[in-house]
């Protein structure tokens, strides 16, 4: 279906899916009669939910102002949690059959609780993901996964075999590998895809069946390969970091490029963080998923994982060097405590490494795009 389309047409299709993120999932539910599970943004074992025959989708932040949700979650909490609460309060998530909340961040715990209460007809589950990286951490994560597996089996009325999980792992690994292939292409030819294109690729992967997404990417990659050498490369090389849980606003990503920069790499959750590593296919599946949580955090450290063996600021310095990036743009979700906690260390590390960085603290509804534009342009002008 996608083979005959040009790369731009495929990217447009992915952009459309990303712009209306729940539509394809709703269609899938109608077509298959199977169950849909909404995951509360970061760190969920989608493979395990998929193995039960359900379609897990990562719930997405909506850019519209928060209204009804105000009554349930205070405005001094982060935009991603408030937006999901708002969607639940407006009955926009009633199409879900199941919902999985999590404890990776205090705001997510509270948000999950509220969403669970706002969706009384939706089966409400919880994934307990222990933090840290001690000798016992992997075993603890396996316990959390086993509890979730038990709840999903009950919800789906189906026993999940190791073979089912392994099969799902293979499909999800394939998706991650394909997206990483695109990242490799973009790292050498940064102007081949805009950062909004990359966002559409990742965001669409989060909300449609991975099998379908794999098919789309398999059509897209050869077309990008064919096009890569004809692309003219110019601009200040920028690395993008942060933006936990919610996708960075498209307007802001576009401004980065309009300011004369090219994005050569990122550690965004709606970016490389989501696909940085595969799950081992030759191990007992739950143990492999648990190991993956520890390994992917070594690949791209996440402040919510509280892993003393990883060093996010140093990772950023190393990534900047690896990608030959000139500047770092940090997109921080306003009131994102884990990110705020790490920022002073990142700032020090950048200063020590002589890497200029710009912090954009983005609130859900209040930012002046004009001011952000001036700041981004002035920042890029510093490198010209």
């Amino acid at each position, binding site marked *: 279906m996608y083979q005959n389309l040009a790369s731009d047409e495929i990217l447009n299709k992915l952009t459309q899916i990303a712009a209306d993120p729940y539509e394809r999932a709703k269609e899938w539910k109608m077509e298959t009669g199977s169950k849909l599970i909404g995951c509360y943004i970061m760190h969920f074992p989608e493979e395990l939910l998929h193995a039960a025959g359900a379609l897990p989708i990562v719930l997405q932040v909506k850019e519209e102002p928060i209204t009804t949700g105000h009554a349930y979650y205070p405005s001094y909490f982060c935009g991603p949690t408030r937006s999901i609460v708002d969607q639940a309060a407006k009955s926009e998530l009633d199409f879900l059959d199941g919902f999985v909340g999590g404890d990776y961040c205090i705001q997510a715990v509270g948000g999950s609780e509220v969403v669970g209460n706002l969706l009384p007809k939706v089966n409400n589950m919880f994934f307990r993901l222990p933090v840290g990286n001690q000798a016992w951490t992997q075993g603890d994560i396996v316990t959390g996964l086993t509890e979730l597996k038990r709840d999903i089996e009950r919800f789906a009325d189906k026993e999940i075999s190791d073979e089912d999980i392994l099969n799902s792992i293979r499909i999800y690994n394939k998706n991650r590998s394909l997206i990483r292939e695109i990242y490799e292409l973009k790292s050498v030819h940064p102007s081949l895809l805009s950062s909004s294109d990359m966002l559409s690729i990742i965001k669409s992967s989060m909300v449609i069946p991975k099998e379908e997404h794999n098919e789309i990417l398999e059509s897209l990659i050869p077309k990008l390969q064919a096009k890569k050498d004809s692309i003219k490369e110019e601009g200040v090389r920028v690395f993008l970091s942060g933006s936990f849980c919610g996708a960075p606003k498209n307007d802001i990503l576009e401004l980065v490029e309009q300011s004369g920069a090219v994005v050569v790499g990122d550690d965004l959750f709606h970016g490389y963080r989501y696909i940085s590593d595969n799950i081992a296919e030759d191990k007992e599946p739950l143990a492999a998923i648990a190991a993956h949580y520890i390994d992917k955090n070594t690949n791209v450290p996440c402040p919510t994982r509280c892993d003393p063996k990883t060093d996010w600021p140093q990772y950023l310095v190393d990534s900047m060097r690896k990608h030959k990036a000139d500047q770092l743009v940090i997109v921080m979700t306003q009131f994102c405590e884990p990110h705020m906690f790490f920022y002073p260390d990142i700032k020090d590390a950048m200063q020590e490494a002589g890497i200029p960085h710009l912090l954009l*603290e983005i609130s859900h509804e209040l930012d002046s795009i*004009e001011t952000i534009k*001036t700041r981004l*342009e*002035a920042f890029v*002008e510093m490198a*010209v």
Partner: protein
Amino acid sequence: MTSKSDGSSFYTIGVDSGSLTGKAVIIDGNQRIVSHSVKQLGFVSQKAVMMAIDEALEKAGLVLDDIAYTVSTGYGRKRLEIAGKNLTEISCHAKGANYLYPEVKTVIDIGGQDSKVIAVDPSGNVKNFAMNDKCAAGTGQFLEVLARALDVELTEIGPLSMQSDADIKISSMCTTFAESEVISLVAEGHTTVDILSGMHKAISGRMKGLVGRVGLQKPVMMTGGGAKNIGLVHALEKSLGVSIFIPEEPQIIGALGAALFAKDFATGIRKKVDEEQDLDKSRAPAKDCGSCSVQNYQLNKN
């Protein structure tokens, strides 16, 4: 008229299309300011910008065709068709401030819509900057709203506030809430001069936070319309604990920087000017205000 080879008949223009005013500066090939103009008409008014350009040209006895290159800056920078390039106010203020005062390390620009703190290197490049990014509190617009609430002319608020030694606190830094706070203070019987002084203290407190994000390095220069408000300058000096240098025409520093960039573009130097820029006599401190530590820097006019 001198010959072309000495640079004095080669001209570039910098245009600052600000949120409330249009400014233009013409310099010659020797980087001497030939003329400048400031016009106020309304929000990002193209008309004000064109009037400023026309006036600067007229003062210099030039026509647009005499201009080798134009750089625009400010909110409306992208809308000026005659500009060969556009650059942000941040880069331009740094460049303009460095031209007037090469030792300057920190530039505080309080404009109509936003305020900025810029760390400048010895070549006039931006080392770091911070900008008020959430609202108009602490900007020219904020002062305008509050001046209106107090029924005082904008030009009078600085000198008036200097008459107060009261300690009035305006806690809210949201323009809308601060306006109602000011109205309450009036209702409580506080005098206009005391309230104005409180307003300046509130803004300088907020600016101190912005300065802290960049790191205060002396010498400090203030640019933009806010620098014309002596009450605000004093409050800032007090809260930062430094003397602040004020150019004679603080509103044209962005346009001046743009004109200097235009010269770099026209001559192929671009941004980084390595040569030492000596503070010549015409750019030395012109006069000290008797009552404070603020120094005026005079622009060298032909």
